[in-house]
Each structure stands twice: as C-alpha cells, then as structure tokens.
C-alpha cells in the first residue's frame, strides 16, 4: 500500500472522488452536468495526447482528427445506418486504432519537427475529408440525433447523470492506464525517448516501434473520447475534427501538466469551464486564449500538476536531507572530525 503514501496518488484520488461526487452537487442542473461530461470526454482524448506528447515527447497535431473519426463513426452509424451505440462505439475504437496504427507506420520513421508536420497533415486531411465528403458525412449540416447508449431497462442513458457516470468510468480506466504506463517499463521506455532519441536507440530501446504504439494508443484514446462526445452532445459538425479541437486539447494538457497522471483531467476541467465562461465571445476567445497558451509555454510549461509535483519533490528532498543530517548527528560528531585529523596528519 506504499502507492497510497505518495502525495501525487492521494491528490489524483481526491480529484477523482470530487468529480465522482459532482452529480450530488449539480444533479438537477442538466446544463452543468452536460458541460462536465463533455469536459470528461475531452479529458479522455487529452490522456491520449499525454501518452504521445507528455511521455514520448512528440507533438501530435492529429488528435482532433482522431477525436473526429471517433465522433463521426458513432454519429453516422447510429443515425444513417441505425446501428446500436455499442457496436458503433466498438467500431469507432477499432477504426481509430487502425488509422492510428497505419499512420504510425510512417510517423515512427519521423522525429521532432517532421513528426509534428506529418501529424498536422494527417489531422488536416481528416478534417478535409469530413467537411467535404458531403454524400457520407453531410459536411456542414452535421449529424443530428446521435443515439444514447442502450442498456435495456437497466439504466436510462438519456439521463445526464447516468451518461456522466458512463463517461466517468471509462475515464477512470484511462487514468489507470496512464498510471500503469508511468510506473511500468513501457513508461520508462517512452520517457527515455523523450529525453533523447539517439540515447534511447543506443541503449537498445526500439524507438520506432515504441513511437508507433504510443501514437496508435493516443489515437485510440482520441477515438474513445470522440465516440462518447457524439453521444453526449447528440449533434456533431465538422468542428469536432478541426484543428481547433487539437488546439483545445493542447491547452488542456498544458494547463494541467504534460506527462503527469492527473494533469489532463485537471486541465480539461478548468479550461472547459473557462471556455463556457467565454462562450459569449466565441469569436474573441482565441484572441485571449492564444496569448495565454504562449504565456503558459514560456512561463509555466510544467502546468498545475507539474508545479505541485515539483513542490512535493522539493519537500521530500528537504526531509531526506534533514533525516540524513540527524542520523549523522546521532552517530556523533567525532567521525567527521577524525577524517579531517587523519588527513592533517598525512
């Protein structure tokens, strides 16, 4: 149970408990519940971004595209083709996995700038396909009346609270996966790549394969988030796949903290509510948010959780230093004195 002693894990757990309790506070207010639930959907996609950007250190600008693929797979299949939500959702996950894996085949060969440019191209192409292929995606008219998940007579997912808990449970899985990755050898492999690709290669890390899998995993998370988003919101347009979405995710992860377990969730929640706050100034919001993101990257690149983590580390270090000092004193001051005298006699 030593994992529970780590202040980081305690913080993450506390955060999850607070969010789980949200329906108790806002259960009657459907609007706020909906905002929170869409924020959680975005958080799932941001956890995907965390794997590729936070752990592996590669900027993927295709996350909005994968989010869009997930949303449109669920949206189109449940309306035009009358599939059930669950089968459409499963296909959305498989679909993004396949697209992510295939584009990863080329992405794994590229690095740094080239990786970012390549993923930007992928994201843009996905957006173009969705916004232009009118016969299938209805282009700018979007998709209406996306189905809620079915659960027989057990649970009624048209109830915002039920939908909230569904998304929340899936989010929990994503948080756990992130936590597990961070603790495991996989996480250390990815962190090595982030530190230095050449070094990782030299010590026998399979850089290409790791990057490809990380990219595919991030795509799947994006697809899951998008699929749920379509069902939560009920209406989707090409905006769901746009570069703006990627930018929003970037903002979420930056505010929360890259490469941390709780960061994406904190960032998503805070910024989602900020967005709601700015909603009346839809056109103006990027005028404020663009400079904010630049300022964040320049002055606070570690994000909220990064800084809290740094605080915890510093405190631990101080405590460790204090402990070693007190043990030194307990051993008696004679020992260090002796060494100096022996040196002098030499």
């Amino acid at each position: 149970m030593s994992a529970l002693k780590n202040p980081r894990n305690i913080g993450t757990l506390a955060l999850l408990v607070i969010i789980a309790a949200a329906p108790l506070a806002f259960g009657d207010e459907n609007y706020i519940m909906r905002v929170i639930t869409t924020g959680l959907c975005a958080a799932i996609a941001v956890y995907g971004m965390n794997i590729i950007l936070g752990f592996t250190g590669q900027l993927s600008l295709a996350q909005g595209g994968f989010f869009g693929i997930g949303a449109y797979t669920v949206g189109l299949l449940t309306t035009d083709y009358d599939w059930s939500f669950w089968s459409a959702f499963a296909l959305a996950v498989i679909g993004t996995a396949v697209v992510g894996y295939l584009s990863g085949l080329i992405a794994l060969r590229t690095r740094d700038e080239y990786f970012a440019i390549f993923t930007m191209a992928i994201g843009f192409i996905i957006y173009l396909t969705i916004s232009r292929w009118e016969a299938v995606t209805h282009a700018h008219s979007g998709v209406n009346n996306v189905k809620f998940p079915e659960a027989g007579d057990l649970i009624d997912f048209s109830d915002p609270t039920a939908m909230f808990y569904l998304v929340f449970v899936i989010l929990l899985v994503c948080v756990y996966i992130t936590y597990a990755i961070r603790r495991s050898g996989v996480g250390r492999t990815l962190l090595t790549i982030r530190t230095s690709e050449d070094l990782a290669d030299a010590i026998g890390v399979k850089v290409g394969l790791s990057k490809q899998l990380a990219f595919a995993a991030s795509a799947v998370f994006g697809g899951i988030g998008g699929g749920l988003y379509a069902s939560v919101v009920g209406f989707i347009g090409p905006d769901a796949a746009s570069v703006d979405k990627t930018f929003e995710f970037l903002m979420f992860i930056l505010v929360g903290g890259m490469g941390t377990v709780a960061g994406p969730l904190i960032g998503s929640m805070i910024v989602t509510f900020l967005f709601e706050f700015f909603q009346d100034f839809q056109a103006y919001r990027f005028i404020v948010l663009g400079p904010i993101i630049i300022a964040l990257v320049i002055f606070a690149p570690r994000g909220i959780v990064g800084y809290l983590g740094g605080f915890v580390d510093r405190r631990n270090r101080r405590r460790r230093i204090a402990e070693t000092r007190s043990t030194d004193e307990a051993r008696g001051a004679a020992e260090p004195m002796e060494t100096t005298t022996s040196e002098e006699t030499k």
Partner: protein
Amino acid sequence: MTLFIQQLFNGLALGGVYCLAAIGLTLVFGVLRIPNLAHGALYMLGAYVTYFFLATLGVPYLAAIGIAALVLFVVGVGLERLVFHPLRNSPHTHHMIAAVGAMFFFQSLAQVIWGADFRRMDTPITGSLHILGAEISAQRIVIIITAVVVLALLTWFIKRSIHGQTIEAIEQDRTGAALVGINPSMVSMLTLGLSALLATIAAGLVSPINLLSPTMGDALNLKVFAIIILGGLGSLPGAIIGGFALAIAETMTSTYISSAVGEAVAFIVLVAVLAIRPTGLFTKAVQR
C-alpha cells in the same frame, strides 16, 4: 494542347506564390531551427492587410502589397521577440505549441476585424494575353513576373548583401557566427520579419484570384510544409524547385484527374517523401 499551356501558366503562377511562401518558412527553419506553424496565419494576415490598404484606403495595388509587406515585417519581428526568443532554450515541442497559439491568435484577430465571411479583392489589373493560343489572365502574368523579380532580389540579398550573408552564416553555424561578431538575435528577427514579408507578397499576389477568409492560411500551411520537406528543411533552391513542382503537379492533376486529387497532392507528396526518407529528400544528415 491549348488547355495544357493554359494550365502550365496557371501552375507557374501558383508556383511563384508557393515559392515565396515556402522560402520564408525554410529560411526561418534554417536560422531558428523551428518549423513556424504560424506561417500560414502570417500569410492570411498579409492578405487582409493588403486588402485593407487596397480596398479601404484606396492605395494602388502594388503599393498596397508593399506597405502590407512592411507591416507584416514588423509583425514577424514582434513574433520572434515575444514568442520564439523567450523559448530559444526550451524543448522543441514548446515553440511548436506556442506557434500554434500565435496561429489561433492571428486567425481570430482577422475574424474579429474583418468577419468570418469570404471577401473578394478586386485588382486593377484586368485583361488577358494570348500565348500560343491559350488565354492567360494578366494577373497571373503579374504574379509570375513579380515572383521572379522578388526571388532574384532575395537571392542577391542573401548572397551579396552583408545582412543577408549573416543569415547564411547563422544557418551554417550559430555559435561560429556569434564568435565572429554576428548577433544571432538580430538575425533571427530579420529572418522572421523577412519570412512574413515574403508570405505577404505571396498572399497579396494571389488574393485577387482566390478569396480571402480567416482560415485561408490552413491549406497553404500544409502545402508549404510539404514543399520544404520535399526540398529539404532549410534549403533555398529546394524550396524554389519544390514550390514549382508541387504547384504544377497540383494544377495538372486537378485538370486531368479531379480537383479532389489536386487538393490531396500536397498530402500525398508529404507522405511519400516521409515514407521514403523521413528527413526530407535533399537534407544532409544532421547530428543532434
């Protein structure tokens, strides 16, 4: 054959525009070692500023482009000072994120000032020329001539003038250039200003043919990145050859296959190049 010549000239005109836009991007990459993802937004802003001087203030067409280019030069310098300079020692993902932030800032700025609707820029250059039976609009001829003149001036500037040569020196070796007394910060500012200036000339030239919108830079962004990856990041001749090659491929496939394929050409080129040689076709191996 007439159609072919017609499309060839269209391709050349488009190529001139792509070259001007891509050269700025490749210069910035050579000097600052960053892909400026906000380049398309600078191009868009350049188009709108040209439009402002031309349509709102009634400045003559070519003068409007010139003034707008100077305005954007200042914007580029400001972008370097405020965004990229503070990030010069950060991990490479950070300045790309900041560039995306700048891109969204410029887009929404244009949207607030000029609205989200498409706008049309009227040019005083009308009429057309008959060359080998094909009818070429005078605007396209102006684009081709201006592009060639600007490219020649730029080559002279970089190869012959003292300020241009500092750009090349920094590209070759930042530390070494600093040792012989070149100020890297000044050169970075100059380069970003120059790239914004070139993008504005490109945008001002092509705007009368296309329409203006706050998102017009997005499609161009993808294309210029495809061009400089094809030509090699940081390579000037590569950007010129790549620009014309992509533009001609684009117009020809749009004419003879379908417009959808024409739009996808840039993406296909990008994927193909990265699949064959992940570091670009003409780049030398770089040790980091």
